């Protein structure tokens, strides 16, 4: 299994992602530079966290139009697995691969702390190693982490079971 980790100018968790793929998944990791048009035959693509383009204009807005993203969008449209973490998630929303947008935290504060997430479903490609209801502790570090979408889009996401993780407390409660 070969997994591509995209590096944009300002990405700072690309190496974390690379190591996680190698050591956590035991898979081959390759870096994909934002200017390239070659996905190097990867089986999946990860968009890592960071501050691509300094969050200029909007977080992820400029990275979403990088040359590599044209290939990532085509790859995803053909059914290829793509995961975005933090800034990577922002990029997926800006690129239109996911609905909605990430807005400034309502507190206006940058939140840097561990949080608990509940795995909603155990299913390929990304959560099949978890159990539904399992509680994970992960770090967040974001100023624009407030997911926003029109009410009908939110209803559709819930109806189609497309929410992968939900913030919760240590016991997995909301």
């Amino acid at each position, binding site marked *: 299994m070969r997994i591509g980790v995209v590096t944009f100018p300002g990405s700072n968790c690309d190496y974390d992602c690379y190591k996680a793929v190698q050591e956590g998944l035991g898979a081959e990791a390759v870096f994909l530079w934002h200017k390239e048009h070659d996905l190097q035959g990867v089986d999946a693509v990860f968009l890592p966290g960071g501050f691509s383009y300094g969050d200029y204009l909007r977080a992820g*807005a400029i990275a979403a139009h990088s040359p590599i993203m044209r290939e990532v969008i085509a790859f995803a449209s053909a059914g290829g697995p793509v995961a975005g973490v933090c800034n990577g998630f922002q990029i997926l929303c*800006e690129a239109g691969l996911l609905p909605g947008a990430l*807005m400034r935290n309502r*507190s*206006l504060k940058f939140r840097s702390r561990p949080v608990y997430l509940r795995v909603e479903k155990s299913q390929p490609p990304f959560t099949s190693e978890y159990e539904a209801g399992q509680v994970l502790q992960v770090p967040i570090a974001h100023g624009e982490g407030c997911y926003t979408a029109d009410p009908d889009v939110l209803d559709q996401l819930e109806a189609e079971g497309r929410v992968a993780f939900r913030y919760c407390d240590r016991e997995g409660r909301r």
Partner: protein
Amino acid sequence: MTEYGIEVRVTPRRGILDPQGKAVGGALASLGFSGVGEVHVGRLIVFSLAASSEAGARERAEAMCRQLLANPVTEDFAVTVGAPAGSAP
């Protein structure tokens, strides 16, 4: 082709929570400015654009807004097409 002056105003969509606007409103109030209504914070993007007509310049600027300059989920945009750069006021 003429050079037009483009101004793009990007503002939070009506009804979307604007905590930044609220925070600015609160700061104005604590400075003693009364009578201030809802505050909204947006951004202004300014550039010159070579086009063959004002309508053409507007159309291309609006396409730029839809594709990059504004996020349609959370923002509205307004385009102003000004006199060609360098022309008398």
